[in-house]
């Protein structure tokens, strides 16, 4: 069994680039990313990416993400930069004191390569790359549709769009982490489960990389969890910070994929876990479930990390890597 210390991405922008970007663009709604940045702004994001990749390497993470400094609108980003999407009102991001521009989809979501371009840039900085994308269902929850006409058609359209994006990823991408918090926070009706499964399966089929579907802020419902097991993804993710007992129950009762992602570091609290806490959480899960061996255990913060100040974010990366190392030594 392999342990992989990694993250769910969406990092805080390093201090130097944060200040530079405000100087260049200001703070208003018009200052945000639209996919057509000036050379100066692009250079600031390139510098941020370099720093964020370096921070992961310094911390000793096994798989490195691009960092997604450009994702001004968090998980809604891939839509917010699309030519057939207009930026709507600034609205609340899940149950957080954070806000984003609600994307309003006004035309067909053709593949646009925005994510692949960032990943190609990151691939020049590391040889162990993990892509992070929003899941199709979460995008239906975060965006507004004026094109597809029904929630079912919108979900299918988003699955096609994401499959196209993922298909364009550079070969250096080893894993694709699909973040689907909305499956927990506002789950689909039972009669939509199959469609959600098929949407995720379509994304999975678009790449040779290992696909991990990760949820957080609670645990999946039992039926939905069972449907996700039918997507053929390499791993399902579980938030052991917010719902460890519920998550373990799911795996005890229904099993899981060949690999798992375990959210073992709190992405929304500055309290930095001790390495032994990280190791204990990983061991506790292994001992609690009737699975003799996993192919891979991805150890990760439970959520994106932009909620944290930069110093706490970097400390968390270090704690995660050290905790995983401790487990590996013990085994």
């Amino acid at each position: 069994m392999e342990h992989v210390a990694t993250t769910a991405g969406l990092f805080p922008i390093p201090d130097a680039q944060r200040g530079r970007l405000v100087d260049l663009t200001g703070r208003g709604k018009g200052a945000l990313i639209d996919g057509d940045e000036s050379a100066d702004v692009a250079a600031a994001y390139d510098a941020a990416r370099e720093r964020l990749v370096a921070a992961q390497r310094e911390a000793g993470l096994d798989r490195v993400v691009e960092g997604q400094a450009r994702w001004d609108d968090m998980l809604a980003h891939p839509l917010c930069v699309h030519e057939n999407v207009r930026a709507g009102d600034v609205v609340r991001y899940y149950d957080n004191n954070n806000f984003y521009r609600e994307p309003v989809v006004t035309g067909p979501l053709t593949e646009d390569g925005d994510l692949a371009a960032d990943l190609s840039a990151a691939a020049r900085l590391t040889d162990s790359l993990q892509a992070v994308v929003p899941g199709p269902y979460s995008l239906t929850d975060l965006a507004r549709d004026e094109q597809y006409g029904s929630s079912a058609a919108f979900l299918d359209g988003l699955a096609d769009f994401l499959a196209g994006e993922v298909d364009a990823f550079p070969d250096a991408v080893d894993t694709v982490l699909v973040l689907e918090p909305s499956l927990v926070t506002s789950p689909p009706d039972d009669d939509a489960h199959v469609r959600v499964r098929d949407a995720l399966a379509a994304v999975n089929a678009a790449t040779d990389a290992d696909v991990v579907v990760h949820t957080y802020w609670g645990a999946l419902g039992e039926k939905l969890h069972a449907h996700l097991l039918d997507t053929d993804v390499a791993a399902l993710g579980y938030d052991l910070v917010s719902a460890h007992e519920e998550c373990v129950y799911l795996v005890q009762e229904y099993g899981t994929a060949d690999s798992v992602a375990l959210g073992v570091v709190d992405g929304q609290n500055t309290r930095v876990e001790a390495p032994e806490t990280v190791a204990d959480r990983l061991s506790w899960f292994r001992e609690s479930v009737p699975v003799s061996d996993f192919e891979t255990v991805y150890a990760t913060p439970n959520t994106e990390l932009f909620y944290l100040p930069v110093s706490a974010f970097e400390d968390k990366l270090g704690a995660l890597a050290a905790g995983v190392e401790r487990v590996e030594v013990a085994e």
Partner: protein
Amino acid sequence: MSADRDGRGGDETRVGRERFRPADHPNDHFLLTTVVGSYPKPAWLTDVRERHEADGDAVTDDEWTEAIDDASRLITGEHERAGLDVVCDGEMRREEMVEFFARRIGGYEFKGPVKVWGHNYFDKPSVVSEVTYDEPWLREEYEFTAGVAERPVKVPITGPYTLATWSFDEVYDDDAGLAYALADLINEEISGLVAAGARYIQIDEPALATTPEDHAVVGECLERIVAGLPDDVRLCLHVCYGDYGEIYPKINDYPIDEFDVELANGDYDQLDVFADGDVDPDLGLGVVDAHTPTVEPVAEIEANIREGLTVVPPEKLTVSPDCGLKILPREVAYAKLENMVRAARNVEADLDSGEIDPDALRTGP
């Protein structure tokens, strides 16, 4: 326990409204006019602060203190010039509603800015040890403002639930535990303010709007906040935006004298929530929008005030802006307040003359 705190209860005995009626009030009816708290800072104050922070020799601590006092005096006077019955200094000493208190409460630490949206950041503090009351937070602000004001002064305080949920909590088991500990500190602070003469306190709980399911936590916080306070202290709870249907009528059980809401921004689409004829505390009604720079004409604000009279009688209606005005241009903020007071006085005159029949306006049972 609701309106029966320390023996008060019912409209007749509710403490505090008449004491704020100015001696020269022109009408028999009295719609108490006030502000929620924050107000645009004079441009020069921001300039002096930046120079003081950049170089303590260029602008010394004494000069900075003098500048803040001048700003406080200026804005308090501006509120009085607008005709408000109860004033404050526009929170000239405060930069941000959580950070200001976190810098004064023991147990807090600042670890760096965090993103709110886009390129907008906030110094979200971390609670790294048990919170403690080390020194008065607002006494200087209150004493100075009361010293320069002709009118009574209200003291806005960020509520414990908001202070807790808008912080990183590294110590307490849950947000409720931290909120209760902070409520005890706020009780201590208010006791000091009351000893200094304050009689009108406003607790700001914007976080309740986003997590209304925690209304019981806020209720318990308020019980802790009022513990041991004298009967003649008027306590207001301000909750801006959000779904009021989730917290009303539960707020009727809160130990508060006034519940202040933001309704102008939504064009009173949530007013029905309060239309059961059973609103227990006085209603502080937002009648000008704190988010749009358009100055509402007096007639429009009069119509907004009449909206309030459909759910509570005049003796239970307080008139205020929707929220703090600090994001508006200063001249716009002033014009809104001036029009608001004029509108309130006009409605009072109409009530006096019988042109407005409040009983006929009320829609509740």
